[in-house]
């Protein structure tokens, strides 16, 4: 039987959840024994196989049209979709800009910020993705497994991947359940 394929990507996050994934240290070898680690932001292959993967993992919330594309692509190509970390699960720290609105946040960052000079300008290149309110992953696509945490513990990620790699659904509760 071929090993289950796992792919991951990141969106509006800080990459901390992937750093926490790497924090499982040598235990990642056990995961590689059990599963075929495909496209991730930290491997050469950048997009999940068109033929599909068994498990797709997404870090970060969805804050623009590019993130939306990533989310839809991962959903379409994964049997099981995992929301990894507080941003993917709840919206997280980036979602706090929803409190003031995207335009206000852009103005504060690009024009008003103390480090800007007089020429402050909000980027408006038409090639850029269109910004939106920050949304949790499950607001855009269906999610099968939620692993909250900022970031989730390496131990929890290891547990979840090991379960998924062996065809079981991880149960995130009790000592494995943390939002911080």
């Amino acid at each position: 039987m071929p090993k289950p394929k796992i792919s991951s990507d990141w969106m509006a996050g800080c990459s901390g959840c992937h750093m926490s994934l790497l924090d499982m240290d040598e235990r990642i070898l056990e995961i590689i024994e059990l599963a075929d680690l495909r496209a991730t932001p930290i491997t050469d292959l950048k997009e999940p196989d068109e033929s599909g993967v068994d498990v797709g993992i997404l870090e970060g919330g969805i804050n623009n049209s590019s993130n939306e594309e990533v989310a839809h692509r991962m959903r379409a190509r994964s049997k099981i979709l995992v929301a990894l970390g507080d941003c993917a699960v709840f919206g997280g720290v980036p979602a706090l800009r929803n409190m003031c609105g995207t335009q206000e946040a852009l103005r504060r960052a690009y024009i008003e910020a103390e480090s800007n000079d007089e020429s402050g300008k909000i980027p408006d290149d038409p090639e850029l993705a269109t910004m939106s309110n920050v949304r949790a992953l499950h607001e855009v696509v269906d999610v099968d497994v939620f692993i909250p945490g900022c970031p989730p513990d390496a131990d929890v990620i290891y547990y979840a991947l090991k379960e998924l790699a062996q065809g079981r659904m991880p149960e995130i509760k009790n000592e494995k359940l943390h939002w911080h």
Partner: protein
Amino acid sequence: MINLTINGKPITVEPDTTVLSAARQNGIHIPTLCDHPHLTPYGGCRLCVVEVKGMRVPIAACTLPAADGMSVETDTPALRESRATILNLLFSERNHFCPFCQVSGNDCQLQQAAYGQDITHWDIQPQWKNFPVDTSHPHFILDNNRCILCRRCLRACAEMSGNFTISVEERGAATLIIADNGVPFGESTCVSCGSCVQVCPTGALIDRQSAYLGQNTHLTTTKTVCAGCSVGCGITVYTRDNRIVKIHGDWDAFNAGTICKTGRFTPLEPAPARIQSPLIRVAGKLTPTSWEEALAAAAEAVKPGQTAAYASPRLPLESLRAFQQIFAPQAAPAAESVDGKLDALRNADCVLILGVDLAKTHEVLGFMVKRNLPKGTKLIVIDPAPNSWDELAHIAIKPVAEQDVPAEMAAVIRQNGLARIPTWPGASVSADETITAAAEMFARAVAPAIVYAGDPGQALLDLAKLTGVVDSERSGLIPVKGAANSAGAIQLGVDKALWPENATAYIALGDDIPSPELLAALENIPFLVVQSAYENALTDRADVVLPAMTWAEQPGTYLNLDGRAQTATPSLTAPAGVRDNTSILEILAKTAGITN
């Protein structure tokens, strides 16, 4: 007794027990948020809903009285789903993003409640509305974005401190916790007791000093006694790396968690410079020296009966006893104590306050009175000086010079036949209307109490007996005694400074600050020894300085105003080279040849 079953387990409880209490008494966990064991049940959050056989819908256990034959289920799949929905709705109302919240980790009861229901995500996302953050208060911050409207703060403000500063405005999800009629907290009637912060289950009320200095699990806790005044409240001191992070009222102590600004926040204020080594004056300048030399120089000056001496009544009883043995071995123990019991305030329906401003001193004693006012407790304030409670009082009396109001009240009571004990009618009196009204109000009370400062005087004792303030069952004549161990100092006969003429002086301050009177009295003293934790105007002037521990560093016993002896446990380690006040005095006694 009431018999019911909870989760199939037969349980027997006292009448007037709620289903929640019945469950707790029997080790059955029902999740709660708005409930607090020391506050009146509110039934607001609905997290404690349970299923009761025969009842149409789940019902809040915190406000449901246990009844005979009741069959209660606390943890069915339907209830778990209800609780998850309730929590999800709470999370959706405001900003409950955990990663940057001070209480996230272990201290947030909202987060813990969510973990308890295995909530991994929010089905309903937040509504992204901004709520006001009030940073105007010197000691704490109110962030309405973190608030779940459980109203614990409101209940603590009313039921613990009797201050009624906190209330709410608006309705439903727009409800806001406000101070007074919506003024900033820093400009409100808040007395900074901090009880609201202590009971807040989320990060909505956080205290400026302790915020982000660590979760409770990172802190060391020590249960001890407040040295702020003679009430002697039980406190829990939270420390980290030998620093006090915060102080809470001890729920298990007699004050049941209520403390005041002096107990909670004053010890966190910046302290004066610490004295780290014994000092001796050499060529006009204080110079570090060894303990041996400093004690020898101090002992040289100490001549019982000839040395002016004063011990701070903030010192532990053991220190005061050692002080007494050296400086006042013949001190007469105080006459039989007439101390009332603070318990008498619990059900007092009329309280007479005589010559003390309970907003300025002994605030917790004041809270014990004020929180009963909504129950109809009457308040009479007699004070020649302007008193913070003049407006609060039902009757405020401003005696003129030499006027003995208690004597006039007693006379009215005798004359009008209102005394509780057999008495003679007494001479006819011409008390004015106010005093007559006060006398009648006080005499008609079922459980009257008196709070006074200083010498009670014969008239007050007489009034207390006539009105049943003091009888075989009650002792409601409560003296405000001043410092943490003033009662102990009085018992040992060392409550007043000893001033022989032409004397050298020994002043045991501990961590106290010298009063202007003390400084003035010691103006021309030829040789001055000061035992002190901190540098101050007196140590500047001293010839020998002995570095002492603070209240938080030394063990000891404190006798409070109603005669309760309580043990203080050290919460901090003193700097090297500093000794505890009792040891200093004991070694001094040996060095001076007074004890072996």
